[in-house]
């Protein structure tokens, strides 16, 4: 990653324009040609520096439901339980964390009733209780990283 890549990553994490030629407009701001910006973005996506380029949707505002869940899984059983949990398409991400509650995952569904259904299914499949931590309030959610 060179200086130009860094500038693109740092300055294009939001505010991409909704005009007919948005890459040309964004390139102009960066002092680049449209073609160069498109090539750089292609490369940054291919090498995994960027996971995506486009709109970031808010699942809840789109009418879906989202919740954070945690489980305490014995080490000997961890891989099996992880595979069972991850097999649900509603599990958006799942992290192993260093804590007694060692598995933390986010459920994203199209409606709140489905959250309950998926949690009950996971509990039945794994014979492990699932703790649910729905979000009550969000404070300044802004994910911006400096490259």
């Amino acid at each position: 990653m060179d200086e130009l890549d860094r500038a693109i990553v740092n300055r294009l994490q939001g505010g991409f324009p909704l005009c007919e030629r948005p890459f040309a407009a964004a390139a102009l701001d960066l002092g680049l040609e449209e073609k160069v910006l498109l090539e750089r973005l292609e490369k940054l996506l291919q090498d995994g520096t960027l996971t995506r380029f486009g709109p970031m949707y808010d699942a809840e505002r789109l009418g879906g439901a989202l919740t954070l869940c945690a489980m305490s899984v014995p080490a000997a059983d961890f891989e099996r339980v992880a595979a069972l949990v991850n097999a649900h398409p509603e599990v958006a991400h799942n992290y192993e964390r260093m804590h007694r509650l060692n598995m933390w995952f986010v459920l994203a569904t199209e409606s709140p009733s489905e959250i309950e259904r998926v949690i009950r299914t996971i509990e039945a499949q794994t014979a492990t209780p699932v703790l649910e931590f729905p979000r009550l309030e969000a404070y300044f959610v802004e994910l911006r990283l400096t490259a």
Partner: protein
Amino acid sequence: MNRVDEKIVRATQAGLPLVPEPYRAIAEAIGVSEKTVRSRMREMLADGRIRRIGAVPNHYALGYTVNAMSVWDVPDEAADALGAAVGALPFVTHCYLRPRLPPDWPYNLFAMVHGRTRLEVEHKLVEIRGVLGARLRAQDVLFSARILKKTGLRL
């Protein structure tokens, strides 16, 4: 949400096409005008259904390999003010109020902190502690050991 918005969400949730006129490409794919795509997206941006449009970096690729979920117990009546103060710290990427589950889980404020080293993250946690001050009753931090699954939003 109307049918056109839904089609736009489905067509763009994995990303915009990297072509000079991406909104036209989406419009052609879903059978509406280019102007419609842009005006619907502008409205979704205004009402918060779209948080922002741009590059979504991969934490690991940028060297942010340490991910800490810090959890704090603060009095309910102070939670909104403290949550806003913690959320405003530049290194806190998400800050949420969530329910306590006593007796095992006394914490109600969750703040995600990302860093390049564990030491860097620990310094940031000290800063959060400073913001919470005397209102802080208990705390814990859960460092990530491994990503087990990560997918974007899928409708």
